[in-house]
């Protein structure tokens, strides 16, 4: 098997013992096909058991291991060592407070997700005994890509607006609200609109599109945000200029 020694520069911060974050350098022998997470695991097992980070599935679906790798938000389990030359710098996700080492405090996202009501608010209630709602493959396709969000928050780390305006509700939460708005079974758009069309909602987005570029699941939050903006505009016109037209 082909191995090579990889140099990692990892941000360390323990609030109990450090006055501020600092970098620690590790050299670790790695397999050619490994990802950054494999290197971190080997460091933790063989060099430094105090290093802290989150991970679980190692297949880019649980969303735990988002971190900055050479300045870019990545899932550590999908950041292949072979794609980097020289020292690899690993830091916690940008725009979130550091809890410890590579572990961030994500309360803000968790709270915002809840605020946009990311659950089905049915157009009409139907008892389970009456079977499933029908939904054609075309109707499914309309919202399917937005269901693929794994809540890894790489998009928040990439979003310049979120960095500047912490109240901004942010790409993933808006994309998930949009996911339910676009679902043929759902009738809850008005309820969600209060959150996502508010000042800290979609209007804060300056359409840089960084969120969509970094998404490991190829969700397009930027597209969702623009669609919400357009629909909100139409709502506004209907309400203020054409009150005789029903929404």
């Amino acid at each position, binding site marked *: 098997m082909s191995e090579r020694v990889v140099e990692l520069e990892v941000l360390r911060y*323990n*609030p109990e013992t450090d006055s501020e974050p600092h970098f620690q350098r590790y050299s670790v022998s790695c397999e050619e*096909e490994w990802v950054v997470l494999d290197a971190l695991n080997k460091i933790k097992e063989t060099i430094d058991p105090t290093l802290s980070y989150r991970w*679980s*599935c190692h*297949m880019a679906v*649980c969303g735990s291991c988002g971190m900055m790798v050479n300045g870019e938000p990545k899932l550590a389990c999908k950041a292949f060592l072979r794609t980097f030359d020289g020292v690899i710098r690993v830091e916690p996700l940008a725009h979130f407070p550091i809890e410890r080492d590579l572990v961030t405090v*994500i309360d803000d996202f968790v709270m915002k997700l809840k605020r946009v009501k990311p659950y089905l608010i049915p157009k009409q209630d139907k008892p389970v005994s009456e079977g*499933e709602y029908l939904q054609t493959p075309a109707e499914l396709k309309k919202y399917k890509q937005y269901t693929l969000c794994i809540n890894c928050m790489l998009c928040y780390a990439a979003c310049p607006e979120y960095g500047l305006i912490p109240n901004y509700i942010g790409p993933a939460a808006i994309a998930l609200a949009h996911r339910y708005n676009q679902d043929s079974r*759902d009738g809850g758009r008005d309820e969600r609109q209060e959150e996502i069309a508010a000042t800290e909602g979609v209007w804060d987005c300056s359409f840089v599109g960084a969120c969509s570029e970094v998404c490991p699941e190829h969700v397009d939050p930027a597209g969702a945000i623009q669609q919400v903006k357009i629909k909100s505009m139409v709502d506004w016109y209907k309400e203020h200029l054409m009150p005789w037209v029903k929404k």
Partner: protein
Amino acid sequence: METVRADVAIIGAGGAGLRAAIALAEADPKLRVALISKVYPMRSHTCAAEGGAAGVIKSDDSLEHHFNDTVGGGDWLCDQDAVEYLVQEAPKELIQLEHWGCPWSREPNGSVAVRPFGGMKKQRTWFAADKSGFHILHTLFQTSLRFPSIERYDEYYATDLIVDDGRCQGFTAIEMRSGQMKRFQAGAVIIAGGGAGRMFPFTTNGAIKTGDGMALAYRAGVPLKDMEFVQYHPTGLPNTGTLLTEACRGEGGILVNKNGRRFLQDYGMGPETPLGKPVFKTMELGPRDRVSQAFWHEQKKGNMLPTKWGDCMLLDMRHLGEKTINERLPLVRDVTTSYLGVDPVTDPVPVRPVVHYMMGGIHTDIRAATPLAGLFAAGECACVSINGANRLGSNSLTELLVFGRRAGLSAAEYVRSARPGNDAALEAKATAAQARIRSLFEKTGGKESTAGLRKEMMATMEQNAGIYRDANGLSEACTKLGELRHRYAEVELNDKTNVYNTDLLQALELGSMLDCAEAVTVSALARTESRGAHQRLDFVERNDTKFLRHSLAFHHPAQPPRVDYCDVVITTSQPGVRDYSGDHK
């Protein structure tokens, strides 16, 4: 110690825990539900399930078929009353998820689509492409946000159940963010802590699946049932162990050896079926235990392909075409391409069997109740038992829904008549639990490391408790695990700080795994027969006279577990021959 009071507290916020929480919230919005997990709910390993969830929905299928497939698939070790309940509730639960927004794949007319799965006689596996578990988990998590009575405690690690007055009344848990110990006091506790695949070095299981929920109940005196039955999934990526769903074969993928032969036909699962036209319950749609065992024999014969990660068979999906693979198996294509550099559209994928699922677990009855009053369990950590000696693919997602809900309802009913606890007694027990954790911080001069012991545990499990077992290997494993149990007391933490201390967490997780591993090997040594996923080279036949019974492993703090047995519940299906030779008799 800070005390959190709830009517029902749930440990684990994956599929089963979330389903239980929602059932409680719907049953009685006044019940305070505390939902704790060592990870955020969406990180739970339910997210990694790919293929789908079984439930009878099409007109050519019947509950009886689903029942028979499950009981036969489990080599008659299933409790048949539990299976009856499972198959009857399954369609309702899957429709309920649909009503909550789960993006199930659809037929052109808008009805829910189903696909074939191993060991199933009809198409009854509901799926959302090949991210079914992911969508189920997120649908449940997002739906749970609707209910104000569900209070979440994310990133809390439960250390000890608190049992007083003969009933479970809560537990202690460490808040990872602060390192502080909290006492959860509840009228009832539900454990939904998932499986324990990380006892083995090569597994589909995520890092978090360390058997913590099983160990909590076990140490509190609840037996672990049928722990010797460990499922190997036939098709894991050879390097990382990442799961390639059985749906690869459900959609028509085939398994060949290095000579290109579809070797399953040589192991009672033939004759060969036409390429790309899978036939129910035969060849590549055989059950997981049989397919993994066939691999083992082919490997012994030298018919497997040597790779740098060990011997592999080939999973060939090329004939499915790019369109089908993209629509139905997008994750599979992404995973094999990214992690192995093999595109299933153009090349066969090398795969090998990988530890996937624990059929055994916390002993529960059909109400999801354990023998300890006030304690319930559901999901992979529990053994109810619908899986018997071998779980059929796509029954576990259904199980966590059906029995997650059942646990919630049973707990709701139980707390209605639960007496208030004795605060002082509960506090004293919590303080003792806290002292145990604190002693880990105070220990100096310990000679052992968590990583070192973990490696030795994994090696002995891989070596001795795999697809085929014998008395020599199992005895060796039992001795080794006993030795590791002693040496575990000598582990010294490298990290003695409080905030998000993963060194401590991993040490505690290792303790859970060692307990589970000993239950596996001791139960396996005692079962001198071959049944389902438990195959003994020295006892090759199934022995219904002696072993048509569930094993029960009882914990002892300083000795190997004591193994006892209880009867299997049989309602309509008498033990018979498992026949996977298709329709070609």
